[in-house]
């Protein structure tokens, strides 16, 4: 790593902290300040008693000035005593419990969809115009158009329930039984990946075709490199840059609870399913926690994507400032 790269990374991480702070303030304002009415009443749930509301108001300091309220919220968030008044459980702890499940889903699915997207995108681009390419175009379109809840339900019903090839939903901890863990995740991974495979392989195909007409690819051939090396080292390396950007952002979104449908269909009880339940019950502290968690991962992965981008494309590093 040279000094330009180090400076870029430091700058990018600092700006990430700033954005995280801004996001937390925004969440605070949106949930506790902007809506009319008493925030304590909203948090307390559907049929609260006067004492409950009073206790919540006291706890969150809703009588205090705004900055004190914000600090109280952040303190509760980090100390883990932000409590859902429906379940009486700590929101922070519940999210922590859901994270390994969501991470398992996200990491596996992201690897699967990227691997398939690269393989299919490259194949399509090399065969551009041929029947196999056209067939893949149609398949990609079908994959993009299939709703996850429908595909997930079909997979769970036929492969899980009817044929019994896979467990019908649920989750087993990796530390308890790695094989069972894998077995329970195959269907969710696949269900979540299909959309991304279709989408990414299309993006990659057009990137590759564009790159192939670049002058430096002609140079690479003129150097006497093998066609395979030209394709992998020069064409693919340059075409992957935009796809990696998408990858980072989508991965961040899935970890932050974005795979609500997949998690719910397969009963994984990750962050996404927690979010779905919290919203359904209008459980304000839980929704707040999930929102902050989602925002955190999206912001972090945005920063990581920018850093990866700079590592992949040396032209970014010198430009200074904002990166992309």
């Amino acid at each position: 790593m040279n000094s330009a790269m180090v400076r870029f990374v430091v700058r990018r991480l600092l700006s990430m902290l700033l954005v995280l702070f801004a996001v937390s303030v925004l969440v605070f304002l949106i949930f506790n300040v902007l809506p009319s009415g008493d925030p304590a009443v909203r948090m307390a749930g559907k049929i609260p008693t006067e004492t409950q509301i009073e206790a919540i108001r006291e706890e969150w300091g809703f009588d205090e000035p705004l900055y004190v309220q914000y600090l109280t919220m952040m303190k509760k968030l980090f100390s883990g005593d932000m409590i859902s008044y429906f379940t009486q459980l700590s929101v922070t702890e519940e999210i922590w419990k859901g994270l390994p499940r969501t991470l398992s889903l996200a990491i596996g699915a992201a690897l699967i969809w990227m691997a398939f997207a690269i393989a299919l995108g490259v194949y399509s681009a090399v065969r551009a115009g041929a029947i196999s390419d056209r067939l893949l175009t149609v398949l990609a379109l079908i994959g993009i158009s299939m709703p996850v809840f429908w595909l997930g339900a079909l997979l769970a019903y036929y492969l899980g329930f009817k044929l019994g090839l896979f467990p019908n939903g649920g989750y087993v901890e990796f530390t308890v039984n790695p094989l069972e863990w894998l077995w329970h995740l195959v269907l969710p991974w696949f269900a979540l990946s299909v959309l991304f495979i279709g989408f990414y392989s299309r993006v990659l195909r057009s990137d590759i075709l564009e790159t192939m007409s670049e002058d430096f690819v002609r140079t690479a051939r003129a150097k006497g490199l093998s066609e395979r090396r030209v394709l992998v080292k020069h064409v693919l390396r340059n075409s992957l840059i935009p796809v990696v950007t998408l990858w980072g952002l989508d991965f961040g979104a899935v970890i932050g609870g974005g795979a609500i449908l997949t998690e719910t269909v397969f009963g994984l009880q990750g962050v996404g399913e927690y979010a779905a339940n919290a919203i359904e019950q209008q459980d304000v502290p839980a929704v707040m926690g999930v929102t902050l968690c989602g925002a955190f991962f999206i912001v972090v992965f945005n920063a990581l994507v920018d850093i990866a981008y700079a590592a992949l494309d040396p032209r970014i590093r010198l430009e200074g400032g904002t990166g992309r």
Partner: protein
Amino acid sequence: MSGNPLLEVSDLAVSFNTEEGLVQAVDDVDLQVGPGEVLAVVGESGSGKSVTAMTLMGLTRGPNTTIAGRASFEGVELVAASDEELRGIRGNRMSMIFQDPMSSLDPVYRVGEQIVEQIRAHRDVPKDEARRRAIELLDAVGIPDATTRADSYPHEFSGGMRQRVMIAMALSLEPSLLIADEPTTALDVTIQAQVVDLLRQLNQSRGLSIVLISHDIGLVAEVADRVAVMYAGRIVEQGSLDEIFYDPQHPYTWGLLGSLTRIDRPRPRRLLQIPGAPPSLLSPPQGCHFRPRCPHAFERCPQTPGLEARLPQAPRHLDRCWLESEAKQELQP
């Protein structure tokens, strides 16, 4: 040039199957390049110069391309050679540099790595040895502080410096032939002169043969030994630099030279221009391709004239025109 030519092209024809129809981009091209010789191929855009060069490198091969004729280089038949065989030759015995040095290098790799990659594609040498060689080459083409600069990325170089990098890369395996396709067109005038000087110096010090493709007659006059003039896919005239510049035989060459200001001639009031535009290669005119624009066309012209020596005193001065030599003498501007 005496002895066996390094490169001998005969009857080379290249056509592309496009959606609009068959494009005969190169038709019946004959060329010879001797060891240490600089052959310039001149002509306007679309005359088939670049296609000829790329075909020699095997870069035009594809499902929609038909290539016919012969091209022998160092005893290898290039047209008939397998892809694998050609790959072993290009970048190794025969190299090519391109018009736009800004986009001809891969933006994501350091220039040193790109040279090392080429060396290791052809020779089984360790990385550090290839790197030493790359630095030597960068130094030889006039890149200051080559050891540090080898670790720079292409975007950190100016256009002229990038073309030097391209030249260093092209020379990395000591090829006997360098094909330079419009090597200075994208560069500033002062930088053009430097690149031309470099090419001339490489030709003289290493005996490197060069095929220089250009539409810049001034550049050609500076470095070429022999000149081939191309028009609409065919060579219309070929000869030594002096023969082409001082005794041109083909009306197209007259027009080409007439469109230049020359300090060895009285200044004309107005530069000549050739009326009309080059023909579409989808449906070229029958016979001589220049016929529709030629002020001297007559009844023989609908038949294609061969590329032949028509002057008894100059056996290697060839042209493709039916006019009698005496008539040409009179008509010559």
